[in-house]
């Protein structure tokens, strides 16, 4: 658990990398531990921003890693593990959003009940205590969903254009264009506040 130093990202299939890829595909517990160690924070953070700090982020993070273990033998190494996991997480979020839309009435009632009984801590609350970050997050929230995701992936998660394109299943050009447009729009919302 403590040994997080090993880099398990495999963008190019050199001989050594191929060996590493084989180890990942075998799904050995020690390799899985390293993957969790390296990527759990990033995946959780991504899902927190997608779900607006909802407790659903925790469930989706668990589901993401469960799916990853189930299909680790299919991992081809074309994308880095980080991108691969982000892609799974994004799919999980889309699926959950669809099912939430289907069961909106039931979910709303459950939320009201749970809010009354359990005090759920939003992981974004701590950040929102900073005035600038709160304003920034509010401005981000005004963006379109596609722009919001691009901001999260590029500026918060640190993914490259190519990696983002792989996660969102888009062309690199589209992602680049959206990434260049989103901060300008964000700035517009922010300067509008002054």
């Amino acid at each position, binding site marked *: 658990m403590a040994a997080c130093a090993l880099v398990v990202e495999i963008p190019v299939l050199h001989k050594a990398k191929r060996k590493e890829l084989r180890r990942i595909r075998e799904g050995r517990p020690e390799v899985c531990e390293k993957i969790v160690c390296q990527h759990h924070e990033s995946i959780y*953070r991504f899902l927190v921003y997608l779900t607006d700090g909802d407790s659903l982020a925790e469930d989706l993070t668990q589901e993401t890693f469960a799916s990853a273990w189930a299909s680790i*033998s299919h991992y081809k190494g074309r994308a880095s593990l980080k991108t691969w996991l982000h892609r799974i997480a994004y799919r999980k979020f889309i699926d959950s959003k669809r099912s939430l839309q289907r069961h909106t009435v039931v979910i709303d009632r459950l939320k009201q009940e749970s809010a009354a009984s359990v005090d759920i801590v939003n992981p974004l609350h701590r950040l929102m205590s900073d005035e600038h970050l709160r304003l920034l997050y509010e401005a981000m929230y005004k963006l379109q969903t596609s722009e919001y995701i691009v901001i999260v992936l590029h*500026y*918060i998660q640190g993914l490259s254009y190519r990696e983002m394109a792989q996660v969102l299943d888009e062309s690199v050009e589209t992602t680049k264009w959206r990434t260049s447009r989103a901060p300008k729009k964000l700035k517009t919302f922010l300067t*509008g506040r002054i």
Partner: protein
Amino acid sequence: MADEQGAEKIKDIFNRKDITVAENQEHKWATLKSLEAHLRRLAEIEVPETLKAKLFAAIPDEQPKAGPKHCVRWWPGAWGFGATAAAILVLALILVTNYGTSGPSRKLIADINDKPSYYTLADQNNTSVGDGEPCGLQRPIVNLNEPAFRY
């Protein structure tokens, strides 16, 4: 529209002489560079310990079954074996049809040419027509007394 309003407000702030340090700081942070820096600060989210424990506990002890990539690997060998076997079979068939049965069949054809299955009466009687050449092929005469022609 919002952009224009924002720009106007920023201009107003710049033109004011009595701009306070706080206000100056406030509009400065909205530049693109500082925006990126602030966005990076949004990455500071802590993962709950319970979630960490759950994730580590969910790591499978057993190795997963080999995916189709592993299973498919024997297919090239099977394809190669199949193709080789088919090629050998075709070659064998060609050899058999060309050489295996060629001797007897040629012989048979030669036999037919040498000894036709039907003879003219003139051939049978060892007679000749005109200049003494056998006339079997020129004037075939069917012997109607043969059993095949009785019906």
